[in-house]
Structure formats: C-alpha cells, structure tokens
C-alpha cells in the first residue's frame, strides 16, 4: 500500500526501478559444467517476480504524485534482457535503460551494485526501488549494497511505503515483526510481495511501450572500471559444484482412519517426540 500526503509540497520525483531478468522459477536450474555458472540459456527468462512489485510501487507513487513524476527502469544483463525492460515499459514505466556489455558476464553482487551505481550517475533520481530478492541469486544484498555505493538512505524490505513531501516512511520486515523506518529523499527502497498487487500489461500498454525511450549503455559510457566487473572482477569463486543426491521417494499413504496414529508412530520412531 502506498499513501501520499501533503499535497502542497508535491514536487515531481524521478524514480528509477532496478529490475533483473531471471530464469523462470519453475524451470529446472543447473550450472554449466564449463565454468560452474548458471546456465541462463537453458531456461525461459522472465522479469524477477519481486521486481514486478517494485515497478508497481513506482507506478502507484507516480499516479498519486501526479505531474511530472517519472519512472525509469534500469537493468543490467545480456542482450535478451531488453525483453524484460519492454515488459516493464508495457506495465507503464516511461523509459528504459539497458546496461549491456560483454565485460559484464559473470559479475557478482558486489560488482552488480557497482555497475548499477555507475549507471545511476547518468540519470537523476530521488528514489531507487528494487525487489528485495532475485529468485536466481537469492542473496538479498544488492539493494543494501547499492545504498552503500550511492551514500543515500537505505529503506529496504518494505511491506508498506508512505511518502509525505520528501519524507519516506516504510514498514521494514524484521525477523520477529516489523520496524517503522523513516528517511528523507533520496533513498534506496526495496519491496517485499506484501506491498501491492502488480498490474498486468494491457494491449494499450504493450503498444505504447514500443514508443518509449530506450537507452542502451556500455561500460565505457558509465565510466566503470572493467577490473571490478565480470568473472575476473568477482570477489568470490565457485571451486566445485555437484548435484545433490535425489530425495528418495517418501512413504505417502491415504488416511484410512489410521493416518494420525501412523504419523505419531513415524514421529516417535524418528525421535521427534519426547
């Protein structure tokens, strides 16, 4: 949910949403034997689910703020990432920036935050919104890292965002509840799925998306040092990857009236009941 107050002080905002293309979560994922990296070509690629919530939150913010508020989507990834940016444009984002360069292949989270921060130096922003986690990396660190790089407020894991003038208040999900956290813009915000219900692109949106500005940036254009990026620039390396042994088939049976008792026997036999 997004609430906007204080109508008089509503300056237009520039909002940038960082989105990532990921393999479809239902597809079986595996590592390439060659370099132990995620085999991205093997699976269908989709917009990271949580990033749809990030785009939606930006659009709601834009709609309630009105006027000149802009929403730009930014993604770093190989050529086909353009499809994902188009999807966000068809949801309603006004412009897209695609950071694409052969030198980015194999970049880790530390490097991703560096490249995104460098790209953000080329666009004005008041608020950067991200998903709280990507379904492939599942690290949940890029938003915090980005706040560190940009030197702006970190308002991450938001299940609710409220904007009043230039003050942003979020409900940050914690391990035992939530914390209300407040900061002045500019800020980096990341969202969890409780925040809203993302819209589906409609036909009009899909047509309009084709005419929206679409900028492609290479590393040289954002002044990024190649040494911090790519596989060689990564701070970590995979030394070994093996397939886990498949789970052996379980003991599944219908409840014929003895289900509860048999389950009790199982728990006792396994030592789970004292």
């Amino acid at each position, binding site marked *: 949910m997004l609430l906007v107050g204080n109508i008089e002080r509503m300056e237009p905002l520039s909002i940038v949403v960082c989105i990532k293309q990921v393999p479809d979560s239902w597809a079986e994922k595996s590592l390439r034997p060659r370099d132990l990296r995620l085999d991205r070509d093997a699976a269908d690629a989709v917009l990271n689910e949580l990033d749809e919530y990030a785009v939606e939150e930006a659009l709601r913010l834009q709609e309630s703020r009105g006027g000149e508020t802009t929403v730009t989507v930014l993604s770093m990834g190989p050529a086909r990432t353009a499809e994902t940016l188009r999807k966000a444009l068809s949801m309603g984002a006004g412009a897209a920036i695609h950071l694409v360069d052969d030198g980015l292949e194999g970049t880790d989270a530390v490097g991703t935050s560096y490249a995104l921060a460098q790209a953000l130096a080329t666009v004005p922003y008041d608020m950067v919104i991200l998903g709280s986690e990507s*379904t492939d990396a599942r690290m949940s*660190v890029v938003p915090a890292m980005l706040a*560190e790089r940009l030197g702006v407020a970190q308002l991450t894991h938001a299940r609710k965002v409220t904007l009043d003038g230039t003050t942003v208040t979020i409900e940050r999900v914690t*391990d035992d509840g939530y914390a209300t956290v407040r900061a002045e813009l500019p800020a980096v915000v990341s969202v969890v799925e409780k925040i809203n219900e993302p819209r589906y692109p409609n036909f009009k949106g899909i047509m309009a998306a084709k005419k929206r500005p679409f900028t492609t940036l290479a590393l040289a254009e954002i002044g990024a040092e190649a040494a911090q990026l790519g596989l060689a620039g*990564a701070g*970590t390396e995979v030394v070994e990857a093996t397939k886990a042994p498949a789970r052996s088939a379980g003991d599944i049976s219908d409840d014929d009236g003895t289900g509860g008792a048999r389950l009790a026997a199982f728990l006792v036999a396994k030592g789970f009941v004292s």
Partner: protein
Amino acid sequence: MSAVLVLIDHHDGVLSKGSLELLTKARELGEVSAVFCGAGIEVARPALAEYGAATVFVVEGDATDRHPVAPTVGVLAALVEAHAPAVVLVVATIEGREVAGRLAVRLGSGVITDAVGIDADLVCDQQVFGGSTLVRSRVKRGTPVIAVRPNSWPAAPSPSTPAEVTVQPAPAASDVLATVVERVREAAGDRPDLADATIVVSGGRGLGNAEGFGLVEALADRLGAAVGASRAVTDAGWYPHAAQVGQTGRTVSPSLYVAVGISGAIQHRAGMQTSKTIVVVNKDREAPLFELADFGIVGDAHTVIPALLAELDRLST
C-alpha cells in the same frame, strides 16, 4: 592465531541459536572476537563465555539500534581495519545478510551468503536451486565476509574467560540517514523462533480459517516446535507475517518440517526445501509438496491432526 570476527545476533542479550553455532565454528577457525551491538550485554556475558569468545567488543550507545544496518557496518569495518581478522562471520538473518553485503562493499571484499558449511581454508558449502545443487565457493578478494544459515551444524560449549573491550561507534553521516521510529514484535508468545527451531510445524490455506489454524499451533506446542505459515495464511491474517516461510518469508532448515494444508508452491518450497525430514498432510494427493515428503498422509487435516494429537497423548501416558 588470527582473529575471527563474529557479529552476535541476539534479542535483548539472549543469543540466537545461530550465534551459538557461529561461535562454535569460529573456535575451529581461529581466536574468537565477538562483536556485541545493542542492549543486553549483562544477559549475554555468560553465553559468550560459555561458547568460547576470547574477546568481546561491546559497542556503546544506541546508534546500531536506531539506524538499521549501516552503523553496524561502520563498527565492523573499523574493527577489521584495526585487527585484520581472517574472516567476518554473521548470521544470515534479514539484517545480517544486509550487513554482510554492505560490509563487503565497504571493505572491497567478496561476500558469501547462506553458507551451510565452512572448512579450515574458508571454503564454504552452499545449497543452491532449492537444494538440488551443492556448491563449494570461496572469497578471493579482501577479508572474507560470510553470512551463515542457522541450523547448519550443532552448537557446542567450550568455556573461556573473555576480555571485554568497549567500542565507540563513529558512524559516518551517510550511515544514519534512515532512522527506526518504532519496532513491533509480531511473533507469537513463547514459541521458539523459526530460524532457531529444530522442528517447524507450518500450516496453509487448507486449515480453512484462523480457528482451524489452531490445530497447527496445538501440534507445534505438543512437539516444542516453531509455527510457520504459507503466504495464504499470513495474507488472510490467521497468523503474523513474521511466520511466513518461503521466498519472501523466512528460510528454514530444521530437522523436521511438518506442512499441514500447504500445496507447495515454488515460493513456499524455496523457504523449506532443505529441511532434513519433511512430513506433509494434505487432502489432495496431487499437491506438489508430496514430492518432497519423507512421510505423507493424504487426508483431511481436521481429522488427521486431532487423531495424531490423541495418539501422542495415549503414547505418553
């Protein structure tokens, strides 16, 4: 022997099980320097000594409580600079993960999240793609920062007499831009915390309503387990959001995970797939969660769970 910096995760000084596990591992890797932020050091002292801390850095003031993540990163970065530890270990909670990530950027290091094992050469085990692939990886740049998943190995005491050193945090202006106005605990009662629990009993939409969900709570209490929930349940408000297990909730890997009336959507599986033993009760034999089950009953939760509770009562008398 080089130092191993351990950021202590705790609630008002009560160390989480994840912290005890980290201290146990840290003793194998070097000399343990625990870093304690926030209130409750009086409560924490005995546990820090029992689990073998050589040094405890006690961070003064409330900057690390009032401002999420960044001031803690500042404290750790200064300690790394001053003491050149071999590695920094944190518990992979929501906050811990973010501390690890920001710290790696500040130090120019590499970071590993969700390690489930660490060997003497700091090579980490990780389970990726829902546990289907086991990866061994290591940090190759700077002081390694590693966020460890709780329940990855047992905690064992080894008493010490720690030296205590107070630390004055000196957060940069950019570390205090976000301020905590209020903290609200939603987790229920005296039940164990999800991350720490050896047994988790989770319920889904199949329980029907909040009263039906009470069956899950009753079973959890009988087994001394934590209560988990699917998103359908937290959305409906039958149980607090903090108990949500899954991609956007908590990731748990207990010894036993009991799922009642949960279908097993991929987003739910992402949070519980690596549990050691999985038990499923669902009235639909086609529910995808049965694919992961070690033991499953195809039946109505409203009859199976009461029968289970009655049988457990009978066995214990």
